[in-house]
């Protein structure tokens, strides 16, 4: 039965989808989208099956090609990986639905290639999540990164430059990771996560292990855009096409955060990263700084996507903070925020895509009531997602902050409590600034300048097409529903996933 192979199916159906959809798409353009959507659909279904399976039967190890680990490559489906992979392909699925119309508008004639690259990107990300092998992870990391560069580069004029910068920094990150992995392989002689985890406790005194950890954390930190390694992110998110940002922002950096969790807590294990080589302390302080800096930078932005990009830097900080706290509540906060932030950011970037689709620009200074009147649903989703970013209960964003605050208090470090509290207020400043414009500012009077153009725009402006609106609404609704149901997720999935010794 094919379902026995569902762990492999998650990335492989995406890879195959990319392989099939590109050549067939070049032959007949219209077939590429259905193929791509089917591929993501299969992957999404497999991820759901995987999660249900894990919750009922427990963790599951799949041996690729029948080779047993540590020689062969192992795919591990445990509560954490099945949860994260579902987020990845779930977001991918709905963004894929969304992308059809948006791409026709922004990148007409390039959809075929774009879909193929997006599939590769999702394949890379989902592979990173399910694999239990550190080198295989690197391979998927490169697949995901290279396609991510392409997703950025295809955007507007400055996108090429942004993508190049992203490529340079991303490659440096990947090299760091590979170097660290090399050292680790040198001392442990293994690439399998579980296998290395067994060996590490015997090597606590070995400096090479510490160096390997440091290198890998820096590498992953770059991919994750952990402050101060976030410099590639704002430009990349701003200049990528709308759909590109919608693929990148919600899940791209989150998967790296997941990898960081895996490396710290599965491979090296809490005792080592907290006490022997306290790298979590560094992570937690950098994250706290990132939260504040990202929020302040977001306030200073004039363009919606750029503002959201800086806000992402801050939100990654929340996840890093939760990881770095290295206690159960912080862990819950971090993992829950991976989900919540994926939903919020997806909603926000889709909203920005809708606005761009109808108005041609997302410059905040041009926002006015016309947007809300023309696009009531899109605006409503923006409002809900904003409230969630600020952390107003009962939206999802509140609860991740709630666990992070609890975790910070638990660790006795009040500075982080202050950081989280302060950042909520900073979030309120930049989101309400936009909401105020969207809902309250009357349209500017300088219409007469180019009356023809504005008449044309007037004619165009209405709610986004249904295939774009529905994914937007789904993410908007998810923000509220996941907020109310967070206890369900925390109790049934995240609590089981808390690593031993944390």
């Amino acid at each position, binding site marked *: 039965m094919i379902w026995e192979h569902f762990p492999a199916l998650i990335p492989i159906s995406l890879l195959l989808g990319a392989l099939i959809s590109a050549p067939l798409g070049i032959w007949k353009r219209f077939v590429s989208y259905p193929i791509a959507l089917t591929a993501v659909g299969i992957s999404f279904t497999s991820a759901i099956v995987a999660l249900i399976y894990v919750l009922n039967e427990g963790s599951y190890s799949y041996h690729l090609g029948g080779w047993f680990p540590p020689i062969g490559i192992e795919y591990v489906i445990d509560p954490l990986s099945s949860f994260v992979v579902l987020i990845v392909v779930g977001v991918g699925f709905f963004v894929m639905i969304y992308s059809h119309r948006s791409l026709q508008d922004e990148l007409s004639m390039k959809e075929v290639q774009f879909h193929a690259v997006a599939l590769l990107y999702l394949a890379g990300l989902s592979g990173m999540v399910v694999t239990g092998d550190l080198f295989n992870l690197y391979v998927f990391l490169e697949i995901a990164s290279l396609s991510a560069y392409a997703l950025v580069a295809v955007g507007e004029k400055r996108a090429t430059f942004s993508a190049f910068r992203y490529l340079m920094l991303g490659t440096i990150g990947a090299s760091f990771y590979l170097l660290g992995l090399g050292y680790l392989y040198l001392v442990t002689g293994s690439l399998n996560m579980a296998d290395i985890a067994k060996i590490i406790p015997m090597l606590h005194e070995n400096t090479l292990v510490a160096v390997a950890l440091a290198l890998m954390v820096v590498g992953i930190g770059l991919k994750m855009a952990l402050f101060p390694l976030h410099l590639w992110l704002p430009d990349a998110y701003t200049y990528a096409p709308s759909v590109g940002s919608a693929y990148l922002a919600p899940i791209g950096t989150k998967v790296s955060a997941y990898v960081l969790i895996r490396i710290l807590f599965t491979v090296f294990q809490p005792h080592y990263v907290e006490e022997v080589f306290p790298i979590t302390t560094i992570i937690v302080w950098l994250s706290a700084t990132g939260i504040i800096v990202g929020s302040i930078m977001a306030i200073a932005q004039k363009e919606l996507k750029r503002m959201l990009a800086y806000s992402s830097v801050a939100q990654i900080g929340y996840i890093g903070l939760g990881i770095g706290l290295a206690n159960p509540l912080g862990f819950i906060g971090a993992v829950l925020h991976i989900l919540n932030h994926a939903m919020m950011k997806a909603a926000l970037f889709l909203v920005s895509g809708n606005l761009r689709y109808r108005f041609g620009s997302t410059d905040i200074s041009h926002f006015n009531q016309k947007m809300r009147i023309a696009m009531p649903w899109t605006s409503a989703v923006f409002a809900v997602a904003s*409230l969630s970013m*600020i*952390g*107003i*209960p*009962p939206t999802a964003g*509140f*609860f991740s*902050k*709630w*666990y992070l*605050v*609890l975790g910070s*208090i*638990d660790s006795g470090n009040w500075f982080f*409590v202050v950081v989280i*509290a302060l950042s*909520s*207020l900073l979030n*309120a400043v930049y989101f*309400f600034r936009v909401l*105020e414009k969207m809902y*309250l500012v*009357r349209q500017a009077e300088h219409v007469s300048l180019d009356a023809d153009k504005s008449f044309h725009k007037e004619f165009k402006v209405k709610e986004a097409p249904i295939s774009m609106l529905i994914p937007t609404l789904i993410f908007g609704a998810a923000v509220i529903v996941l907020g*109310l*149901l*967070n*206890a*369900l997720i*925390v*109790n049934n999935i995240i*609590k089981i996933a808390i690593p031993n010794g944390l």
Partner: protein
Amino acid sequence: MPIDVYISTVPFYAVIVSLIAVPFILFSSRIPNLREFWTLAASVIKFLLVFSLVPNALSNRVAEFTFFEISPNISLTLRADPFGVYFALIASGLWILTSLYSIGYVRGLNEHKQTRYFASFAVCLSSTIGVAFAANLLTFIVFYEMLTIATYPLVIHKETPEAISAGRKYLIYTLSAGVALIVAIAWTYNLTGTVEFQYGGLFGTVSLPDETVKILFLLFMAGVGVKAGIMPLHSWLPTAMAAPTPVSALLHAVAVVKSGVFGVVRVVGFVFGPEMMKNYGLNNILFVFAGFTIILASLLALREDNLKRRLAYSTIGHLSYIVLGVALLSPDGVTGGVMHLAAHATMKITLFFCAGAIYVSLHKENVSELDGIGKIMPWTMGAFTIGAIGLAGIPPINGFVSKFYIGAGAIESHDYFALVILLVSGLLNAAYLFPIIVRAYFKESNNQQFKSEANLFMVIPIVVTAILSLIFGLAPNLWFRIFDFGTTVAKNILGGIN
């Protein structure tokens, strides 16, 4: 005190009914009469639901409804205990009158965006009842923040630059407060492992260092004190008077600000508990802030010429009466404080209604323009007089009864300074309210002599609230048993001490 808890969906329906009305209100935006019908229907149903809980609540039979677990070991739970029912009764009862009044007001002024206005109002009331029935701190903050957000569209309703900047100020204050409250709640959870409101306080036997308790208490007070207008956290309230008058009337004299005061009492009585309040001297901290606020707010009210702003400062002062009464931690003090929650509600809503009526029919909002208005709007100014007398604490209006009990409580707990504050502020109340009456009746109007009352939708609620103030001054235990509620809540709160 034996508490008998039973499962019931009534608290749930009482909260949800106005939320259910929201889509109906939104979808009938083209047909104003139908739209207003939904608002009125929701308010009446809500009131009846809350009212049905009264007998059980007074005999300490507490209805409880749990939605689901919202965080591990913490549920989203509604519990209709006496204090909650009491507050819900005031808010939902006055919502009916405010809805009628609103109809007259927005139509009289041809306000824009009436649908948004009525929809936000309905959400506010749901949140207020949620705040009233919240069984634990997490449920409380959920509704408390909902209330913050739902009030925002009402504050900026006019969409003028002034209103928008008032909205900003409002958000800065209330969102900061929300954050402080969240931290306080998380800390409490960390210290005790529970966030459930409990008689006598939830800390139980947990012993804590002095500073911890004091900082935690101040965090809580920062959280709920902003909405309660405790100085120095009050300054959003006069600014928020940019909102339409019915909003000021119900939200900035009853629902929103009283949610803050309600929160103060909840924190004092059900989080820290009277024993802890006394042992750590927390009641003295509260007492100082409240006393300070009462006097200073009354003084500031004196110099305001804008009628609504003057009333806003008066509200700030009177909210702290309630806080003061509770801070006394004596049976009569708490009874008086709790009763003042209702008394101030009926009196102040009358005054705000009057201010709105004057604005609608004469377009005047400053005290200095009100010469001779008593002859032009006899019913309105008659009601205004009753409210003003009551706020000054003169019998037979209900403001006297509650103030009397606070005074008795002050003597009971030997806080004679509180007595002085009460007397001085009574005089100050008279000093800022009576000149308005004097102007209205004894000065000649310079341009207009004929009668010009506002429409009946507005006059009827004004007269009703004024009469209610009078009736509850003469018979505090009539119908809604405000006095019984006062004593029951006092027993609930002080059970541990006496």
